[in-house]
């Protein structure tokens, strides 16, 4: 079934009546995603693109059996929207919203982890299972079904890499943009095991960047994996102390340097591409050596 979502996933859109929410609902529907419900408090009873809108997530789940949610709610209210989704029993919540206060996420992530709800994001492009389901804002037309999984801290960089893979004849299973914030619902270490267990995935591309130590932590787990992983780290020439667009992309003091990440991945046997265009070849080599 690939990872986390497939053609049977029943999707709910929180913030469906907003400009972004409606635009991307249309794109998700065009991709073939089953969008079964929308939620905007106060707009219950309306319809957006033929999708029924409810006042609360609880009502939407009861009426439609939605099992995954994607959130396009403005930053001041986004953490509350995640908690509402988690409380209503959804198993997967994808938060696209950028600019959520870190303290809101520290609290929210602690709670969703305790409840066993899978949160992707925030500040992320969402995820796509090629040819089956798209949750979020990635451009659907670049994906082709195939054996390569991808986990990335960056959106557009993911598109660039998927484009390169597709051009090289390498299709994708599931591609997940985990987000650019310092506190994320799911990091590499949370998602790698899902790809390891997924029968549709034969290799994984891990796209990291400066800031934090999630790549180093992931490297330890990769040592134990049967499936090959290929890495890429962006921000190799970024100066320390400067936030490079993403709230989480910053080298602070001695942590978060690109070299530490590259070294950790290589020490775990992961080939790390110096430039993006090298990724497809490294994936092909990894698949051949299995």
């Amino acid at each position, binding site marked *: 079934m690939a990872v986390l979502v497939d053609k049977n996933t029943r999707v709910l859109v929180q913030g469906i009546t907003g400009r972004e929410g409606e635009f991307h609902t249309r794109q998700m529907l065009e991709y073939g995603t089953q969008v079964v419900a929308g939620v905007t408090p106060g707009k219950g009873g309306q319809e957006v693109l033929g999708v029924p809108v409810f006042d609360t997530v609880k009502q939407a789940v009861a009426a439609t059996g939605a099992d995954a949610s994607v959130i396009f709610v403005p*930053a*001041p209210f986004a953490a509350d929207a995640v908690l509402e989704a988690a409380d209503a029993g959804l198993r997967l919540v994808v938060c696209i919203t950028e*600019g*959520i*206060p*870190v*303290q*809101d996420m*520290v*609290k929210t*992530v*602690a*709670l969703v982890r305790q409840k066993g709800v899978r949160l992707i994001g925030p500040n992320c*492009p969402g995820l796509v299972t090629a040819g089956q389901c798209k949750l979020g*804002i*990635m*451009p659907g037309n*670049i994906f082709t079904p195939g054996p390569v999984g991808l986990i*990335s*801290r*960056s*959106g*557009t*960089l*993911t*598109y*660039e890499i998927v*484009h390169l893979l597709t051009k090289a004849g390498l299709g994708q299973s599931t591609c997940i943009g985990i987000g*650019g914030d*310092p*506190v994320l619902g799911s990091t590499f270490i949370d998602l790698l095991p899902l790809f390891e267990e997924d029968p549709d995935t034969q290799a994984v591309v891990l*796209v990291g*960047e*400066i*800031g*934090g*130590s*999630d790549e180093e*932590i992931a490297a330890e787990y990769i040592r134990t994996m049967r499936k090959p992983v290929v890495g890429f780290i*962006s*921000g*190799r*020439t*970024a*100066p320390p102390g*400067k*936030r*490079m*667009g*993403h*709230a*989480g*992309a910053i080298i602070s*003091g*001695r942590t978060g340097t690109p070299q530490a990440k590259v070294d950790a991945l290589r020490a775990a046997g992961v080939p790390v591409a*110096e*430039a*993006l*265009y090298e990724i497809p070849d490294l994936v092909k080599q990894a698949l051949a050596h299995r």
Partner: protein
Amino acid sequence: MKIHEYQAKEVLARYGVTVPRGRVASSPEEGRTIAQELGGRVVVKAQVHAGGRGKAGGIRLADTPEQAEEHARAMLGARLVTPQAPQGVLVEKVLVEEALSIAQEYYLGITLDRAKQRDVVMVSAMGGMDIEQVAEEHPDAIVKVWVDPWQGLMPYQARQALYEAGIAREAVPTATKFLLALYKAYVGSDASLAEINPFVLTSEGQCLAADAKLNLDDNALFRHPELLEYREESIEDPLEEEAHRRGIQYVRLGGDIGIIGNGAGLVMSTLDEVSRAGGKPANFLDIGGGAKADLVRNALELVLMDPNVKGVLFNVFGGITRGDEVARGILEGIRSLQVKVPIVIRLAGTRAEEGLALLQGTQLIPAVTMQEAARKIVEVTR
């Protein structure tokens, strides 16, 4: 957002953190007046966003108000050169405070532990030193407590950390109150770092924040209108300030090739690629998702405000962002800004072909891949 020491102390004091008596001055005369009001020995401290001020002459003791005025005159308007700011930072304000009779110097810090996804409180008896250096050389000298975000820092946790770190036993009750107030200030102001170094125990048995560093979460400023006034002084680069006004994500990097792209990761990779091709990026600039023509024009104008820029590279992979919209913005920019430097453009993804068609017959240099674009911009600016 980084704020100055005097601003940090204003915020901390609101939450009951004890700070030395003092005020900020913008002129030498004002410095003298404050010293007079305080009476006795004072310390004059340059207000800059750079560590290592003390060694650079940015912290000076004054026995008389006249001496305080003298120190203020020497600092104000001068550039303070520290190991962290080798090119020097302009001193626009000085903090004049009562000098403390220091019995002990400790360290207190609160920040986010990204790996554990919770805030961590750090206490050390080795105050006044760079904490990263302490962490490396004496890791056991730092006691850490991780805080449950729904519960907050509990008094017993603060007490336990202070005893374990070897803070003078008689000072622990006062220090516990201090640390709990510091945590309240950290949470209450949505800080990403609160650091008291040194945290001073005076010979009279008082606990005081001799220095204070407070970094605030930009994403949370919407709920802190009282902190917005600090914003102005938080950005030191005039171009970064202009970018902020225009709502553009821009970081000055000091090279001579202007970079514009969509998405932080893609722009970062473009910087890497240009560096690999032997070039020096002038900036990081992310136009974000779904940018319209006028934003692209604005971005180009901003990049060209940097006089060092000898050429500009556009790298856009369209998803929600449309290639034709970007091309229209570039064309508008070239027309209205009278661009004299070469521009290399790489468009891919949504409506890239339409965009490239619009740019045909202009002096723009097209490229198909990111590497080709990087190579070309380095060649034409050499």
